[in-house]
Structures are given as C-alpha cells and as structure tokens.
C-alpha cells in the first residue's frame, strides 16, 4: 500500500507523459501550429449547465474580484484566433468542479487546438494522425461513423427524432429501466444515458473511433450543419470506448452564441444553479470576427490511460485528487 505522500502512478508514467508532451509539440511544430498560453484564472467562464467550475477571489479590498478556473481554454483561444493568430494549440490544465471518478479528476491536462480554414473532416483526419503517432497504433484501426448510424446500429433507435414511447420500450428491454424515470421527456438526457450505458461499451473493441454528426440538441459550441439542420458539426473521439476528445466546426456567429449563453443560463435557473455573466470579451471577439476554423480538445490523462493497460486515471497521474 502506498503512503499518501507518494505518487499514485508508477514513475514510468512520468516518462511516458513527458514523451507524449514532446511528441505533441513536435507534431504541431512540423505543421506550423503556434503554441500559446492563455490564463487559467479568468474573469468569466462558460454557461454550460453541465459544467461546474471552481471560482476564487482576487483580494483587492473593498472590491474582491471573482475569478474562475477555466473549464477549457476555449474562449481565450478564440479571442486569439479573432485577433489573427492563425492556427494555435495549447497544453494546459483545465478544472471541472464535482467531477471525480475512474475517468474524471477535477484538475486535468488538456490539449486544445484550432485550425483556421479546416473543416470538420480535415480536423478529424489530423486528430487521427496525431493519435496514431502518440499511441503507435496502425492507421487501419481507425473508424469513423456518424452518430445516427452508430446509435441505430446498437439500439435501433433514431437519435435525431425523439419518440419517447420507443425509447421507453428500448430501456425496458435492455436493462436500463432507470432511464425511464430519470430522463422522462428530456431527449438530450436520454441520449446521454443510452450513449454512456450502451453505445460506449459497444465501442470497447475499437482502438480509435470517431463519431461525427451529433444531434443538434447536443451542439454545444459547434455549428449546426448547413445541409442538415438536425445535426451539429461536432465529433467525438473514443479510444476503446472511452471519450478522449470533442471537436467542433466552431460557431462564429456572435448573435447565435449569445442566444446559446442565454438559453444555458435559463437552463441553469431551472436547475437552481447560479447564472453566469456572459463572457463579453469573448462575444466581442466573435462580433469582431472569428475566422472559419475547427477546434478540438483532447484529455491528455485519458490518452495516457489508453497507452498502458490501466483502468483508472489514478494509474497515470502523479497526484490525483486524493493525493493533491
């Protein structure tokens, strides 16, 4: 049994992590993507009701200024993009309050990058290239599938059209009865539930699977697809069924972005969560003009997990939550 001062992971994982970081830097240097740094402590944060944040105060009596540990460096990086930085990447820490478990640590390492003039497909290809290089897997082991096709293949349900009766029937027949009461008529929650319980386990056998065309109701900060408004230009990366990244063709419309902030804030009110001031600097950047770009964030710690045959973040982090 390890003492609490000792690192949780094997010392070897420190080396593997360092190697991964340097490989990532080489990868982007070769492609002329600029490494940047943005603040971890910001005066604003996202409104997503599913993301809880840490906040802190800068002491300057009598007005203590509230600052938020960022849940991802997205807003600040988009401000750089609007200012003409060109394609950029960042390796940094991100913080999410209340998330703790085998695959969650409230403080984790993130690789986030944005490619100017890339469409979603190009970004998916580049993501595959990077992961192939980092994990040393063969390019043939990569599969791409649309959310709808995957969902239908595993469950027989249409994820884009909510037929509650069919969903309930599916839950009853597939040992996820709890979903019926929990999700009720909340389509998005049904999708999260079924995806977590049925789809992800079905992806276990696949080394690397990219799922694109998420339902529009789960668009987050992605654009709605131009030719099919029922899906968003968003994809997710799964390694052996574990979610490691989330990519978007980035929403650049300031009006639409502000509408989503307002929408999320009303969702927060319904859930009795505090509402968040919209990040005006970010909105101003969008108003000024964000170049067409695609961006993605990958969880470094989960990527490390997939290298070894380990099944908890504790096995790859020196000082996870209970040792921090």
């Amino acid at each position, binding site marked *: 049994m390890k003492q609490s001062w000792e690192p949780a992971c094997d010392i070897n994982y420190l080396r593997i992590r360092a190697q991964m970081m340097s490989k990532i830097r080489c990868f982007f240097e070769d492609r002329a993507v600029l490494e940047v740094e943005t603040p971890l402590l910001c005066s604003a944060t996202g409104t*997503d009701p*599913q*993301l809880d944040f840490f906040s802190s105060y800068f002491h300057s009596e009598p007005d203590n200024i509230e600052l938020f540990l960022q849940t991802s460096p997205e807003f600040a990086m988009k401000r750089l993009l609007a200012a003409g930085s060109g394609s950029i990447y960042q390796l940094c820490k991100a913080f999410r309050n*209340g*998330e*703790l*478990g*085998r*695959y*969650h640590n409230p403080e984790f390492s993130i690789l986030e990058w944005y490619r100017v003039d890339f469409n979603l497909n190009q970004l998916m290809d580049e993501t595959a290239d990077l992961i192939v290089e980092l994990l040393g897997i063969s390019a043939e082991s990569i599969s791409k599938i649309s959310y709808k096709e995957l969902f239908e293949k595993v469950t027989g349900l249409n994820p884009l059209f909510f037929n509650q009766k069919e969903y309930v029937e599916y839950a009853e027949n597939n040992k*996820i009865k*709890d*979903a019926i009461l*929990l999700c009720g008529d909340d389509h*998005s*929650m049904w*999708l*999260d*539930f079924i*995806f*977590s*319980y049925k789809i992800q386990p079905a992806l276990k056998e696949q080394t690397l699977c990219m799922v694109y065309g998420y339902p529009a109701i*789960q668009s*987050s900060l992605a654009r709605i697809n131009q030719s099919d408004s029922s899906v968003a230009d968003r994809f*997710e990366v799964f390694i052996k069924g574990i*979610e490691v990244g*989330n990519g978007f063709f980035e929403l650049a419309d300031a009006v639409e972005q502000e509408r989503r902030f307002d929408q999320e804030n009303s969702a927060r009110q319904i859930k009795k969560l505090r509402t968040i001031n919209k990040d005006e600097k970010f909105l101003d950047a969008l108003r000024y003009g964000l170049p067409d770009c695609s961006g993605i964030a990958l969880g470094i710690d989960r990527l490390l997990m997939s290298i070894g045959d380990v099944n908890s973040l504790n096995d790859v982090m020196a000082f996870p939550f209970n040792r921090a």
Partner: protein
Amino acid sequence: MRIPIGCFLPIAALLKQLRSLAMRLFQRLAFDKNQRAINSASVSARSIVKITICLLEEKMAKYSTNEFKAGLKIMLDQDPCAIIENEFIKPGKGQAFNRVKIRNLKNGRVIERTFKSGESVDGADVMDIEVQYLYNDGEFWHFMEPESYEQYQADSNAVTDVVKWLKEQDICTMTLWNDSPLSVSPPNFVELAVADTDPGLKGDTSGGGGKPATMETGAVVRVPLFVQIGEMIRIDTRTGEYVSRVKE
C-alpha cells in the same frame, strides 16, 4: 391557580442540558458511524443516541451521490441497502450519472441503480454489532450483546440458514436496522461436535473421498473418513467445508 413563571426556568435549563448532551452524543455517533459498532455505548446511552438520531433525522438522513462510496448504507425502495460500487459517469458535454451497485441487506440481492449526480437519497440506520447466540424458542432466535446485556430476538428471515453454524454461547455479528435484527453472520470459522456420521475405517488418514457428517447444530458437512461421532471439528462457514479436527 397560577404557576409562577420562575417554575419554567429549571425545565428550560434541563432541556438545554439534554440538548447539549444529545448534540455531544450525536457528534460521537457521527464519528463512529462508519465503524462496526458503538462499542462502549451502554444501553441507556444507545437509547439516547437513538432519540438524538430521531431529533436530528432530517440532518443526517440524506446522502448526496457525491458522498456515495462502498459500504454506505442507504434506503432504496423502502429497503436498507449497502453500496458495493459507485461509478461516476459523465460525457464531456452532458448529464452526469452515478451508476451504483447495491446490495439489498434484507434479501442479499445485488442490483444496479443509476442516479442523476447531485441527487440525494435517505440514509439507512444500519449497524453491525457483536452478539452472543443464546437460544432458540421454536419461533425466534435470541441473542445478547455481551457488554450491554441488551437482548435481541431475530426471526427466521434474519437468521436464515446461518443458524446451522451457531451453537449456544457462540459470538457472531448481527446487523441492526432501526434497532431490530436484519441479518446475522457467523464467524468465519466455527468448532462443532459431530453428532452423527457413518463409522469410518480405522487407520484411514488419507482424507480422500470423505463422508457426510451431521453436526450438533444440524449442519451437514463432508468430513474425512477417520472423523468419528463425538469429535470436534473446525469448519469454514464461508465455504461450509471441513478444515481440521480440534484436539480437546
């Protein structure tokens, strides 16, 4: 007749004292909550603790999913249950769930349940105590906590087939729910006398094959051929297997 207001003062003082005693006991209980039992609490102290629990029920009865961990006792479908495993599930941009494996302490069945993260459930007032088995009156099995002399009577639902390992005076673990026996578990090893078995071949010490033997408590165990009626043997109650002979 009018009661002078001053008469109420001692009552108020007494209530205040009782309240502070209750608070102290409650803190103590909270401290002990996860341990096997409130060992040193005497009968009266335990009753007071119980009263305190009732007083403060609202405060202690709820557990949020964030507090879920193996061993936590919660109420589910009106039954007391123990959490075996808790997994936090959350898509990067989506609803967080807690997927929990739970043992129903009444019937031992293991089920899986999902909660929305942040939800709260009622805690179950369940604890384990060491008791001595006294006797069976035909309908109930009687046990006593040696330190407090407090007695408990358990019905067949609580003792199940565990009684076949218990002889009078033996110490075992009893799980209480709201102060009444929920289940009884025997020690891992018990020593019982053989009440009946076929006379084996003298000199056979190989132990291969074996034969059934009925213990003094009624349990039937496979024993080596050399074991004779009247001998004491050691048995592993988890597997129901013979371990060795016990030299008197």
